[in-house]
């Protein structure tokens, strides 16, 4: 077959062309993938963070994305943390966020949200959110496993679309602009994963605790992921705190189930919706939310402070102070930027009142 001298070059030539093809496919995939401040920069900043410096890793859905502030933890407790949260984060993506994080960091504590514990996650409907959670992750065996879990539960998605994003976003040729090339560059996420929304909505507080309610049945598929994550983190020597952020749709039945399940795996459960914590954190339903399920930065300050106090009290190793002065400088500089934005927001709140 390849005996002729001329033909001997054919396999080599094919390999070269295949390599060029894959390189082009990857570059175009990156160019065509839409840019999101919240997801693109969050992931890129995480990869750039100095190795083995993160004390606390935060992962979960949008409630954690907006409701806990790594910069508040840094300012008040010297704790280095990073948020790996995204909107309607599916359990396989939370699994990936945490599993992958261990390749770069050795967190003392993992703070995890379990928003999907009571949801039958629609993997077709939430495809755009799945993409945002997966597209900016580096290719790895863990990513492939997460993608496989997602695709398995979807009728319309394919593994190849995640491996080569061009296959998914090819239709964006109509929207491409010069700024898309600019978006390929690294941009530092000065919030270290948090995505604050500077807005206020008055939430009607309701009577939340009905002691007669029975535990609500969890979604077994979601719980299997959360359970695996908790067990994995504990095996890596990290403590796990499962948190439930203040939420208008919270029910006592869900609280009972979540508490029982997480504690059965050796994790700590903190629910900011209990009467006790709502009072302790002084959550104000008139001021601290931007929608019924999500805290604004003022509310996030309160929950973060509670979490910080809890961490300092219960984990004497924290803060571990493992970061270099360079990382500390970055955090201090980012803190200034954040404080400027926060001050502006607080001024706006005062003027509105």
């Amino acid at each position, binding site marked *: *077959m390849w005996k002729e001298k001329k*033909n001997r070059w*054919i396999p080599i*030539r094919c390999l070269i*062309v295949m390599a*060029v*093809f894959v390189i*082009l*496919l990857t570059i*175009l995939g990156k160019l*065509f993938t839409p840019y999101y401040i919240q997801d693109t920069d969050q992931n890129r900043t995480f990869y750039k963070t100095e190795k083995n410096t993160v004390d606390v890793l935060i992962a979960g859905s949008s409630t954690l994305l907006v409701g806990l502030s790594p910069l508040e933890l840094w300012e008040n407790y010297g704790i280095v943390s990073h948020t790996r949260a995204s909107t309607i984060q599916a359990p396989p993506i939370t699994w990936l966020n945490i599993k992958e994080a261990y390749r770069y960091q050795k967190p003392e504590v993992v703070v995890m949200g379990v928003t999907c514990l009571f949801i039958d996650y629609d993997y077709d409907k939430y*495809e755009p959110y799945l993409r945002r959670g997966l597209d900016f992750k580096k290719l790895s065996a863990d990513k492939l496993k997460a993608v496989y879990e997602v695709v398995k539960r979807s009728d*319309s*998605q*394919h593994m*190849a*679309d995640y491996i080569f994003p*061009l*296959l*998914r976003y*090819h*239709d964006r*040729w*109509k929207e491409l602009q010069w700024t898309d090339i600019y978006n390929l560059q690294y941009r530092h996420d000065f919030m270290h994963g948090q995505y604050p929304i500077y807005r206020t909505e008055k939430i009607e507080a309701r009577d939340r605790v009905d002691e007669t309610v029975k535990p609500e049945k969890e979604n077994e598929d979601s719980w299997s992921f959360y359970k695996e994550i908790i067990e994995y983190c504990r095996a890596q020597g990290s403590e796990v705190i499962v948190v439930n952020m203040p939420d208008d749709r919270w029910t006592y039945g869900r609280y009972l189930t979540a508490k029982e399940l997480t504690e059965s795996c050796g994790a700590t459960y903190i629910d900011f919706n209990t009467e006790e914590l709502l009072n302790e954190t002084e959550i104000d339903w008139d001021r601290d939310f931007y929608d019924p399920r999500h805290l604004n930065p003022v509310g996030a300050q309160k929950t973060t402070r509670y979490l910080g106090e809890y961490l300092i009290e219960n984990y004497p190793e924290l803060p571990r102070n493992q970061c270099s002065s360079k990382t500390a400088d970055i955090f201090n500089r980012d803190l200034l930027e954040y404080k400027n934005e926060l001050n502006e927001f607080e001024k706006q709140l005062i003027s509105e009142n």
Partner: protein
Amino acid sequence: MSFVSLNFVIFVAVAAGAYFLCPAKYRWGILLAASQFFYLLTSPHTYVFLLFTTITTFCGGIFIERQTECYKNFVKEHKEELDRKQKKEWKARYDRKKRRILLAVLLLNLGILAFVKYFKVYLNTLSRLLELESISFEAGILIPLGISFYTFQSLGYLIDIYREQYKADRNPLKFALFVSWFPQIIQGPISRYDQLAEQLYEPHFFQYERVKFGIQLMMWGWFKKLVVADRVAVFVNQVFDRYTEYTGFYAILGVIGYTIQIYGDFSGGMDIARGVSQIFGIDLTLNFKRPYFATNIPEFWRRWHITLGAWCRDYIFYPISLSKFFGKLGKSSRKLLGDRIGKLVPVIFAQLITFFVIGIWHGAEFKYTAYGLYQAVFIIGGILFEPFIIRLTELLRINTKAFSWRLFQISRTFILIVIGRFFSRGTSFTAALWMMKHSFDLNPGIFFNGDIFTLGLTPKDFILLGFCLVFWIIISVIQECGYSVRQLIAQQNAVFRWMIYLAGIFAVMVFGVYGIGYDAGSFIYRGF
């Protein structure tokens, strides 16, 4: 498994790898396994229909041939005793047996085809006749994948055995491969046994050039299907599905769009099928030869869906026009209508029946029958008026050798084809007539006020479509001039050549209409 899915690419790659690595003697077995696996994967619930057609035509072929052999042996044994008349009688006796077998298998298979394809329409017609208006049979039954194609291909084989054109296949597994060869089972081409079978059964060895050409042909097919046909389909579907809202230029644009779409869709699918076959060393029959360059309707049918046209010609048109009944009809017509017209009467009837069959082959709805008869009318008109047209061109001193005349003929034929597409794409016969009538509603404003962009395509899509069509026409002209584009590319230097290949691949990947929100997987002719 769709031809335009990544799974299909992987499937072909694995099948090709297995084929070339397998010992030569058993290579046809790999093709058979791949074909059966492909069908089971794509349409598992209708596999039994494929199996039925395979078994009945295989057995039918052997039984028919046995009758032929029996007759020959009988004549051999009684050579001395039989005179010419007796031989004729015995032949007629065996022929009757053969015909009975043939008819039984034909009726069985065509019966199944008619049942599964037209069942829903029959029931709905019946319910209308019985005034059971509240009952409508929307669900129907599952149409077996490629049934129209493999049924025609198998029956063609059987008729050829009956006509003693070649020997019946004695290996049921090899015959199953002939019926189910995976690149062609979904939408053809309808191959002939003597052209395809031997190619499938004999081992082919890996040839770099051939594999490369096969992949290129597949790429060209994907381009036509994904970049052009599926993009045009966006506004075509909008116009035809809501035809009462889209009149005038919308309807004209829609029907021209559909004319482009169906060509891109069908010929694209054919290119993929031929490309895949070429990788394995098998040359499938050409099914399209730039049909929109045809100068008249008969020529169009010699360039469009060539294998169906040839099938109908060999198994419907000739048997009818050369039958005893039509022979007698021709004779009596000559007495009545004169020599020229009378001689044409059997041909005209045969054409009408052939195009009626072509119409109902596409579907049971009346719009398809109308589509077939519409084509027949122009073909018959062409036959009848040919002398007058020749005379007219002479009178007007038209140079029929000039390019302008050819261009006029091509344009005229294209317009007639486009009008016919109202029937084949319209949601019904009445809808087609309504659309034709309202095509004359003048609304040129849609081209200037941006309304045209409400059909689902952006201005950038229209620009891209324009470029692609111009590119496609250029390629077609080159091919029409007798050049092979793939050969021309192959003559270029390696770097330039590979730049073209990569550009082609990425053009399909980027500009193709596929992915979430699109239904690129389905081919129009897959439904026939």
